[in-house]
């Protein structure tokens, strides 16, 4: 049985839109990191300091690329929600929740690094952390709804 548009939930559509914004942010940061471009950051050098710090890569992979992959997965899941069979769709909120939880936890660690280790705040990274937090809250609500 296919779900109606109303049933797929406004939350999932909102998560999809947030994830698209996240793709924009993390995509931009990945691109600037890989091509060594300066990051648009007002007049502040902080974004570049963060982007070029030793913490901006894990095992040679830009941290921003991890974010991009997570957002692509989130957007894919969110927009597939209404198109999947019911059996599969049951697990979409769980997937959204798991990915965004990992994202929020890792963002928290990165924000700690920015505040106390690198001592520079990258506003793009803050935007990404905010988007992920919103997605986590929405997906937790969706998960609770789908459980009851």
């Amino acid at each position, binding site marked *: 049985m296919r779900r109606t548009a109303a049933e797929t939930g406004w939350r999932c559509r909102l998560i999809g839109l947030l994830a698209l914004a996240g793709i924009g942010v993390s995509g931009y940061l990945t691109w600037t990191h890989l091509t*060594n471009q300066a990051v648009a950051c007002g007049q502040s050098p902080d974004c570049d300091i963060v982007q*070029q710090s030793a913490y901006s890569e*894990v095992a040679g992979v830009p941290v921003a690329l991890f974010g991009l992959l997570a957002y692509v997965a989130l957007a894919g899941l969110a927009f597939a929600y209404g198109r999947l069979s019911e059996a599969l769709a049951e697990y979409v909120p769980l997937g959204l929740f*798991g*990915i965004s*939880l990992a994202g929020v936890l890792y963002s928290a660690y990165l924000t700690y690094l920015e505040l106390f280790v690198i001592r*520079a705040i990258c506003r793009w990274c803050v935007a990404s952390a905010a988007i992920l937090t919103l997605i986590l809250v929405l997906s937790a609500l969706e998960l609770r709804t789908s459980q009851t």
Partner: protein
Amino acid sequence: MMPARKVRRSARPRRVSSLQILAVVGVAVVAVALLVVLNLGRQGSGPARSAVYPTGLTADGQPYKGSPEAPVEIVEFSDFLCPHCADLAHAFDALAADYIETGKVRIVFRNFAFLTPESVQAAQAAECALQQGADKFWRYHDELFARTGAGRSAFSNAQLKAMAQQIALDRSAFDQCLDSGARAGEVEADKAYGQGLGVRATPTWFINGQEMPGALPEAELRQVIEEALKGVEKK
């Protein structure tokens, strides 16, 4: 609308169990912990910030770290944009506690800026930091090498100044020095001096006068230093 939805929901079996949610939370936590641990590994290879050793200037004005009476002297010719130079600097840092802090090895730095225009700028910036003290030079040196590999834009004028800000250099003196190109002659002279010794690439370093081309991993570097120490003892 609402009643119909309720009926459908209640008729549906609960497929996502609390156990599954817990499992997903567990996987998320483990994945993040793994990323953090991998990142910490990188942190360890960075410059040692709490190092305690004397710093100063040699008779001909080159910055050194370690005891001036150390039996082993290493003179390194480096370009701040050269990744192997950063590797060598990090290897020296890793061995600092055993050799530099114990007064066995002294390291003298000389610029050999030849890779890119940014190399020359970075070398001049380091010389400007040196004008504020040898300890400031070494902190700035660590900041520069922490960014090697991040590409040329990491060494733009704005970035060089941001680094100076980060380690609390006197910004107006630093900016004035960098913008005026006051230390350009010094950087050129360092390179010419290196070329006179036969330096063609970076890093090239001399341990008690013996030329050692290229970076060495920590273990091999330790071996070379041990041999040099033994050589001094014999004499």
